[in-house]
């Protein structure tokens, strides 16, 4: 069961299933983190149905839709990178991951334009436009910035995670017989995608 030697207490110990299990548990905690916010969204949508409708009408659902497509595509490319490493196609794996990173960056650039447009119009917490709006609209935009902001943060973390993984692959620390880390990064990226799939209709489509 336990092979390996002791170097300062760390006997080498590999357990792919254990590490996958840990990743799933971690993803679960991420869902709960957003869960608290979804709860708030639900409660306030119930309380301020009208304000939420008015505010949501301002959203640019085109940018939102583009971003949805970008993230879905990137989820596919991560999945393909795992398939590639299993067949020992190192270059294809790297190409797929590069593509994923580009998608992530494109997502963030889109987000940047969207946010700066709104901020330009004075729509941000404490901003001049919000002062004249109803409570419901204020909370809608408060939640909008918090939830998409937190999601954006997760995109960045995901990109860094994938960056590390690519480094491992290029140094042959991740190979066709030992790719659990890549799988975990893929799982994380799918989570980022899934959360967006919920944010998109909540903020852009429900009028």
């Amino acid at each position, binding site marked *: *069961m*336990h*092979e*390996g*030697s*002791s*170097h*300062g*207490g*760390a*006997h080498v*110990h590999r*357990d792919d*299933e*254990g*590490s996958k*299990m*840990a990743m799933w*548990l*971690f993803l*679960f*905690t*991420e869902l*709960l*983190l*957003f*869960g*608290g*916010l979804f*709860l*708030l969204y639900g*409660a*306030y949508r119930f*309380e*301020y149905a009208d304000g939420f409708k008015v505010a949501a009408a301002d959203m640019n659902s085109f940018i939102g839709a583009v971003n949805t497509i970008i993230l879905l595509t990137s989820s596919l490319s991560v999945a393909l990178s795992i398939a590639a490493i299993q067949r020992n196609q190192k270059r294809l794996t790297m190409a797929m991951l590069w593509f994923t990173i580009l998608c992530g960056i494109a997502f963030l650039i889109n987000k940047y334009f969207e946010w700066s447009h709104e901020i330009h119009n004075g729509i*941000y*917490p*404490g901003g001049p436009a919000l002062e004249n709006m*109803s*409570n*419901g609209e*204020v*909370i809608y935009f*408060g*939640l909008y*910035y*918090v939830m998409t902001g937190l999601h954006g943060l997760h995109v960045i973390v995901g990109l860094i995670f994938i960056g590390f993984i690519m480094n491992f692959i290029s140094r042959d620390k991740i190979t066709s017989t030992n790719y659990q880390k890549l799988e975990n990064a893929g799982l994380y990226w799918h989570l980022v995608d899934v959360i967006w799939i919920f944010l998109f209709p909540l903020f852009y489509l429900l009028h």
Partner: protein
Amino acid sequence: MANGSLANDVSYLEYEGKHKGIMGWLLSVDHKRIGLMYLMGILVFFFVAMTLGVLMRLEMLTPGETIMKPSTYNSVFTLHGVIMVFLFIIPAIPAVFGNFMLPIQIGAKDVAFPRLNLFSWYLYMIGAILAIVSLFTGGGAADTGWTFYVPYSIRSAQNVSMTTLAAFVLGFSSILTGLNFVVTIHRLRAPGMTWFRMPLFVWGLYATSWIQVLATPVIGITLALIMLERFMGIGVFDPALGGDPILYQHLFWIYSHPAVYIMILPAMGVVSEILPTFARKDIFGYKQIAISSLGIALIGYLVWGHHMFVSGMSDTSRIVFSLLTFLVAIPTGVKIFNWVATLYKGSIKFSAPLYYVLGFIFIFSIGGLTGLVLGALATDIHVTDTYFVVAHFHYVMFGGMGIMFFATMHYWFPKVFGKMYNEKLAVVACTVIIIGFNVLYFPFFIMGYMGMPRRYYDYLPQFEGWHILSTVGSWILVSGIVFMFGNLFYAMLKGPKAAVNPWGGTTLEWKVPSPPPLENFDEIPIVTGGPYVHNKSTYIMHPSKESINANGANKTVNQEAAL
């Protein structure tokens, strides 16, 4: 085996790996060293918070200003609460003794993710340092109480943001430890250790870890929202912008009530270790105790509303929450009755850990029964936010988990340090602590019932006698605690050498040397029976090929017997 026996000839305390001296500790990924590093941090913070508690008692010795200003008092009770809850009570038993004993008790060489384990320790220290720094920066220590209730926590000019950030980081550490334990328990049990052959401490940790993983993220986001609310005014909790403070309370208690069970379940696990050892008897109702831990964890999720009976919820939800709260008493009662039944007709050996456990059962029962007073709507409305509540939670938290932490230190001291402490002095200290505890906190029940509000700086003259009595109690309690630590500290340096199994315990940690070697076991042992069987070994410690085969044959039989 590639590791040879070098690592297993010397104890984990003496072993020198890649790094020597202090770095050998700070960079160590050995679960035992990490456990001890937690112990050091946690004890320092305990002493800080205890000092704050005593200062509060001194302030309350006489009416009016005694030793500090009202605003200072607010900061002091906030810090006392924050440190005691987030830095002491929640991590103490899992992070120190969970880390140390869990792998040994299940026959593993380490936890599943040793490096992540070290990382959690650093997160704990960073969070702790942030909490301390928040004292001296940005307008002074937070003054909101450890619950950070809005809207005050949004408006307060004190350094609330940094304190909440500290709690946020600590939450992260807690999640990672819980995650590590869950995977360790699932993946690293020694051959033959079925679920129902795990020691009950492991069951306690298992239930706790799930709560850590499933509840902590909610507090994380809640505290993050407080910070955002303060920096940007997003409006979700701010009534001036249409936000709802009650929603804050829901989110806060959705975590913080289950957190109470994070504190108590590992402590109950230790009770279930100590009792069979000192009664020299198989524990009564092993399976019920194991499953009741999960039961408590499960119901614990559904009762958070009992903290909000007077905050303006609908009657229906108040009644539902009240009913659910009563349900927690069932699994808890199961445990208490099983423990008492374990003592019945045992050949009891009275020694320090057992005295602590008896003190625990007494104090915790008072805490639990007064919990019913708080869980019932009518009586809660009378005593809510009074000293009655303060008494109740000190009886459960301090009397439950705190006292059991002391018990744990005595029970596993010989194993951890390989030394023995003076038994007589330990019993004296325990007695002083239990007496001081009750003199300090019992008057709180009476004052609370009479109407003394909590978190108040000043009081009416009719409370003075009770306050004096309670403050005297705090001196007795603290003397006992200092004396207890003195005894243990002296033993650590100068105590006589401890045997492998000084108490006659039957779980796996008593089969390895005291202190244990670096990797705990030369060879992973094989488990052939339940954890608390006296007079018969249920472990094969140096399994040879034959014993594995022989055991493989009867493993299935035993497994059936165990299920």
